[in-house]
């Protein structure tokens, strides 16, 4: 197996795919909900957050997708718990920059989320990794329940 393949299906990714964290978890008092959909793959994701005083108190996701999209959502929910909305938005910006190759230097500040960089070698799979993050962005930006699409 090639190195880039090993990077794409990095051990942390495989682990989060097998045992996604905060999966099918519906936070009590959730007040930000968004649905993400990647029509090309059929991936679907719904994200629920409880935001109080500008802080993400709890977060969970549901849906179905490939290993990359599931692991990305799982890692994201883990990273966001306890973060302020502003911090979450900043993280979205960094991950987006890394996934799209716009700013590879951000990689150092991503911590555990670094494993997502493996998709950069697979242009067709970038959308898989970014679905959860776009859905987060929509959830934070809008008060309403909205569906977003990566298409």
């Amino acid at each position, binding site marked *: *197996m*090639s190195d880039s*393949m090993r990077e*794409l*299906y990095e051990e942390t990714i*495989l682990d989060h*795919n*097998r045992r996604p964290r905060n999966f099918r978890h519906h936070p009590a008092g959730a007040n930000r909900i968004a649905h993400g959909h990647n*029509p*090309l*793959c*059929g*991936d*679907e994701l719904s994200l629920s957050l409880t935001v109080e005083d500008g802080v993400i108190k709890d977060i969970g996701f549901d849906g*179905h*997708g*490939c*290993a*990359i999209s*599931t692991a990305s959502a799982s890692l994201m929910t883990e990273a966001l718990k306890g973060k302020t909305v502003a911090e979450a938005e900043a993280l979205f910006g960094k991950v987006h920059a890394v996934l799209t190759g716009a700013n590879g230097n951000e990689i150092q500040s991503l911590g555990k989320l670094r494993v997502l960089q493996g998709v950069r070698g*697979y242009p067709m*799979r970038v959308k*898989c990794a970014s679905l959860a993050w776009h859905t987060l962005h929509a959830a934070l930006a809008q008060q309403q329940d909205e569906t977003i699409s990566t298409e």
Partner: protein
Amino acid sequence: MSPLAENMSRTQPSAFDVERLRRDFPILDQQVHGHPLIYLDNGASSQKPLAVIEAIDHCYRHDYANVHRGVHTLSERATLAFEQARGKVQGFINAAGSEEIIFVRGTTEAINLVAQSYARPRLQPGDEILITEMEHHSNIVPWQLVCEQTGALLRVVPINELGELRLERYAELLNARTKLVALTHISNVLGTVNPVREIIDQAHARGVPVLLDGAQAIPHALIDVQALDCDFYAFSGHKLYGPSGIGVLYGKRALLEKMPPYHGGGEMIRTVSFEKTTYNDLPYKFEAGTPHIAGAIGLGAAIDYLNRVGMTAIAAHEQQLLTYATEALSTVKDLRIIGQARHKASIVSFVIAGVHPHDIATIVDQHGIAVRAGHHCAMPLIKRLGLPATARASFALYNTTEEIDRLVQALEIARKMLT
């Protein structure tokens, strides 16, 4: 005997030497990610034999000019080659006349042509068009458009658990308001070979014409449009070992003659004045503008090639691959084949519990194996199956049982890695 099998017996099987045939396809001789390429995405598009590549090359090197317009030598040669290609298509599908062969860009354009030129002027609000649950988007959306334009309704024949059409529901859905039946000959997802002869007979008994989407059927079986008695037959060159950008609409002459042109422009006219334009004869009435000249010639070369190999022999080889693949894939733990129809072509969709089809496609690609993953442009069908997506291996004349063994090995690796 099924109509398909009946057709197949029209030509004699020839000695089929797959290793020799593989050498006719230069693209197959390469490594992908350090492994010999195994191309199992033929349902999306198939590879081209040298005969096709050389015919296109020859056209541009020696015989190229615009067709039907010049009196100079090159234009005459190009026109002759272009019209010979039409004749080859006519022979290949056994159409009654070459004027019934209309060159279009592909299956999609052929179906849109029928929707706009045949259906649209005839449809009244409340009329019905009957399609099936296993259609490709290109045999759904053109009808939805024409329904929006006319107030007609789209009705859908459901499938059973095996992935076959429910013919008893078809018989019920066919009624006095039905103005056209449009269905796929072979499903690009399930591999199902539909009993089109029976379906056509029932429609004709009510005076309803039938369009067959032959995109997937044309490379797998000998098609005889007169024996089928279909009214329209649509297919694409690129799935028949020919170029993309060229395809065919076959239509019965009597129907085509009554249809208005689809596009307006050059070639399709007889005389033009600002007051009135008179249209050209068939098939030119439907071929406005400069066509894909080299594409048609390449398609003709593909047909010559297939006639040399023999469609009967190809079909027999592919049926062996289908049987072998069905058995071999079933040995993969937690793998389920989607589409268990009794009559199938060499198209096998599958899912593996706990492994998403996209991960399958990415991982087997690392082993040099090209398969498709996704909804295969049949979202309503995939939804009906209750799946987000499937992986699909679709076999062509140049595939081998060894390649299937390698696929099975790669699938085991993917499964172990992800579960």
